[in-house]
């Protein structure tokens, strides 16, 4: 926020709470000329950027609480059935999970580079390239997830009437797979939404809308993308790796 000290005429002792409205120039006049992207209800670009960024952070807090309900359920049931969960986790494909983890971490890198390229006013082609790379990696992640889901369907590991379990803990295993599908499914929905956001951002970048003066949409989309990646960083060990020491 720019310095407004000049506007403080001192405490006014009679009713007007607002110091003499007519005598004050609209703030817009004493500041930089309008940026074309400045929305009418903000005073300046700094305020607009601050608001958008804080808005996304607050939204991510709500997302943490949203996933938090599922993580709480996971905690309760794994605490109650440690062996059953290990046994069930053993049937997940660690290799696919690990590959997907790497894919997502790399996609976070390309995302960060997309933000960076907008910040330094890189050519539109460069910005679009990083965004497309991020989208390709995201799509790869979803493709691998689809392969894994298909595999679970084939082996009757989808909870419900057709669920079959040959191990010692059929009930905890079914709960584990219920949570597995809820958690990874919700995560996958967030990935799909992320791809949608990226295609909008990519189009905007293609139209040369981002430069060092205006790149908030890329930055805010990046925050979302990193958040979805981080959720996976928690899901991977909690779902895939806890069966590591399990022996039949």
């Amino acid at each position, binding site marked *: 926020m720019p310095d407004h000290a000049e506007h403080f005429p001192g405490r006014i002792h009679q009713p007007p*709470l607002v110091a003499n409205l007519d005598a004050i120039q609209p703030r817009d006049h004493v500041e930089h000329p309008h940026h074309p992207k400045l929305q009418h209800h903000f005073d300046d670009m700094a305020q607009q950027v601050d608001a958008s960024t*804080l808005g996304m952070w*607050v939204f991510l807090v*709500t997302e943490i609480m*949203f996933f938090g*309900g599922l993580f709480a359920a996971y905690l309760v049931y794994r605490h109650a059935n440690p062996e059953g969960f290990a046994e069930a986790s053993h049937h997940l494909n660690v290799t696919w999970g690990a590959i997907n983890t790497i894919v997502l971490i790399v996609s976070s890198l390309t995302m960060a580079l997309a933000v960076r390229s907008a910040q330094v006013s890189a050519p539109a082609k460069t910005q679009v390239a990083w965004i497309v790379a991020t989208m390709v990696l995201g799509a790869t992640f979803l493709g691998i997830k689809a392969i894994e889901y298909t595999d679970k369907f084939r082996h009757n590991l989808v909870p419900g009437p057709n669920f079959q379990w040959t191990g010692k803990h059929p009930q905890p295993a079914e709960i584990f797979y219920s949570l597995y599908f*809820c958690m990874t499914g919700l995560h996958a929905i967030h990935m799909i939404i992320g791809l949608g956001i990226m295609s909008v951002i990519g189009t905007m970048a293609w139209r040369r809308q981002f430069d060092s003066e205006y790149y908030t949409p890329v930055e805010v989309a990046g925050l979302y993308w990193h958040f979805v990646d981080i959720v996976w960083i928690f899901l991977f060990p909690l779902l895939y790796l806890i069966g590591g020491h399990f022996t039949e």
Partner: protein
Amino acid sequence: METVNYLNNGHGLKSWLLTKDHKRIALLYLVSITAFFVIGGFFAMLVRLELLTPAGDLLSSETYNKMFTMHGVVMVFFFLIPSIPAVLGNFLIPIMVGAKDLAFPRINLLSWYIYVLGGIFTLVAALSGGVDTGWTFYTPYSTAAANGHVITAALGVFITGFSSILTGLNFIVTIHKMRAPGLTWFRLPLFVWSHYATSLIMILGTPVIAITVLLVAAERGLHLGIFDPALGGDPVLFQHLFWFYSHPAVYIMILPAMGVISEIVQAFSRKNIFGYSFVAFSSLAIAIIGFLVWGHHIFVAGQSVYAGMVFSFLSFVVAIPSAIKVFNWTATIYRGSVSLESPMLYAFGFIGLFTIGGLTGLMLAAMGIDIHVHDTYFVVAHFHYIMVGGAIMGYLGGLHYWWPKISGRRYSEPWAKFSALMIFVGFNLTFFPQFIAGYLGMPRRYHAYPPEFQVLNVASTLGASILAVGYVIPLVYFAYSLVAGEKSVNDPWGARGLEWEIPSPPPTENFTVSPIVTEGTHQYMHGNQEVGLA
């Protein structure tokens, strides 16, 4: 020639349905929540009519279950939670912080559409056969046994939750980033503080209920095993997740009402609030401690006795900031120049009824008493004292207080006083007998009851009829004021505050010139002389 304001700046349905003006969106909410209030009230009327006689003669037990369920769902999720924030908060917060609009006007409009979509889902559930789980959707009944359209209703709650989340997000960003120069945190009206605290609960709590009802829908629809004990699940986990939101949700309903009362009490006592920072921080304390008390809903549901003791203690603790507010309002009124206009009548009603609701809440927070009166009408009476006696009194008080600003017109003050009195009398006659019935052991959620409770129930139904008339009268005189009301000046109450310095109704941009704020709101004292202290 009328000056251009937000009401006549743009005509036609489209100018309303596509508006990004926070004031118009507030009016969209006003219309829609009023519709839901009428629907929820209709269900309540059927419940009260059934309970007029001990026999279950008007409604079958199944229909009765659906009526109280739909009453709860509609009133909680579609009226009480959005009421003050989405209508008065939406209208006033940008003005009170000296901004032209909320930080995200398009998201604000989106919130309203999400709310309407969620409402449609719930109405479809109601019309296509109803839901009989109670508004709490307890598992495993809701997932394995209940008839009816649980999934549709649950999705309605899920969807409308996002409306609440986005409103909270918008408020938080607006209060942080859009304040006018000179408007420091401690110059903000207390209404803004209470909405800040409310928004914290909205963004931290609502996502949890969203995922919880989504899991209920998934368990019912896809036969996932999360809460159903037949599948190895834990139904108490549902109760924990549900109340983790739904107890703080009570504070979503009451905190904004407290903000309204703080404003009204100052304006009609012509005195600055006693202990501004205590009142401001007590809102935050309620929001924070309110997240730690959910276990008091589960005292008898298999929670360990030690957990029960902790939750009981914390429930007593959360009463402290509430009591601070009541004491500070009282101290503000004390030796003030009190004038008894209709908003102030609602404020008095609020303070008294909220105190009764709060003190009976302490009784319920004590495990010994709770086990005795659990699931009786005592609990029903307690939370109606908070929600109807508190939240709705606050909402109506606020609507009366800011109506001249919203509409630019004055309503009939004698009628307003009369209806405030009707509501106060009707409310007490409805719900006070329920304390007695509950203490004597009348359980809630049954359509028939032993004959010895009939006198109390007849009184309650009579009171509900008076209450209903009390609610209809304002609808009439508010509507009448729009066509024939006297035009209001900028500050009809002499209340002082940013919203009272701009025209009534305000122009679309709120402020033609960006304001610079040099002192807090309601500064009735100047120099070292405090009004009322000779």
